[in-house]
C-alpha cells in the first residue's frame, strides 16, 4: 500500500473520483444503515457532536423522504445514496425512483397553521442545517453539502 494511503485512511473519500454509493430498498428500517455508513466515513474528521447530529438528521430525512414520498414505500424500488468528500466538504446525493416533486412548492412549516401540522419539517430542516442544498430538474434527487471545517 502506498505511504500516502497509510497516512490518510480517508484518502479514498477525499478523492471525488472515488464516490461511495449505498443502495437500499424502500423500507424505513434501512434509513439508519445509510446514515451509519456515512457517519462511519466521517469518524476520522473529529467533528463536534452538533455537526454529526446535523449530518445524520439530514441524511435520514432525505432518505426517509425518498422512501416514503418518492418511492411511496414500494419495496421493489430503491433509494441510491452517493457520498464523497472534496475540499473539506461532505457531498451527499439521495435519489429515488419516483417522479419527483417541486421542493419550492412546499409550505413553510414555521408559519401560520402549518406549525401545528404533523408533517412537512424534513426538507425545511435539511435546508437549515446543510450548507448547500439543490435538486435535479425532475425533483427526485437532492444534493446536500456540509462543510467539515
Amino acid at each position: 500500500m502506498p505511504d500516502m494511503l497509510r497516512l490518510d485512511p480517508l484518502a479514498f473519500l477525499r478523492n471525488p473520483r472515488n464516490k461511495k454509493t449505498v443502495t437500499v430498498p424502500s423500507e424505513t428500517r434501512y434509513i439508519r444503515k445509510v446514515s451509519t455508513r456515512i457517519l462511519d466515513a466521517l469518524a476520522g474528521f473529529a467533528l463536534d457532536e452538533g455537526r454529526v447530529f446535523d449530518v445524520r438528521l439530514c441524511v435520514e430525512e432525505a432518505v426517509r423522504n425518498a422512501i416514503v414520498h418518492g418511492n411511496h414505500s414500494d419495496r421493489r424500488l430503491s433509494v441510491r445514496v452517493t457520498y464523497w468528500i472534496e475540499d473539506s466538504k461532505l457531498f451527499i446525493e439521495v435519489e429515488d425512483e419516483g417522479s419527483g416533486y417541486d421542493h419550492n412548492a412546499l409550505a413553510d412549516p414555521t408559519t401560520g397553521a402549518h406549525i401545528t401540522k404533523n408533517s412537512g419539517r424534513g426538507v425545511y430542516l435539511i435546508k437549515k442545517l446543510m450548507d448547500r442544498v439543490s435538486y435535479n430538474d425532475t425533483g427526485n434527487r437532492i444534493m446536500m453539502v456540509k462543510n467539515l471545517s
Partner: protein
Amino acid sequence: MSVKIENKNGLSVFHVDGEMDINSSPGIKKSFDKLLSARTPKVIINLSKVTYVDSSGLATLVEILKNMRSYGGKLRLSNLSAKVRSLFEITKLEKLFEIIANEEEAVSTF
C-alpha cells in the same frame, strides 16, 4: 426507546429514553395513548435521555400536544439537550410548546 411514567405532585411525568425517529415514533405514540384517553390534565415530558430527534419525533410531540389541548390538558417539555432545543428553535416549535429548563422547575411552577 422506552417511556416511563411517574406521578409527581398530581402530575404525570413521562421520561423518554432513547431516540425519537420514524421507527420509534409509533411506539412513543402508543405509550401516550392511555394518557390521552384518560384526559390527563397536566403532563411533563422529560427529554433528558433523548439523544436524537428527527421530524417524526417532532411531529409526534406536536400530535400529543394537539390531542391534549383538544380536551384542555396542559403539556410541558423539560430537560432538552442543547441540540434538541435548537431543533425547536429552528422549526419555531418553541413558540408552540412550553419548554422548561428542568423537571423540578416544571413541576413546581405548574
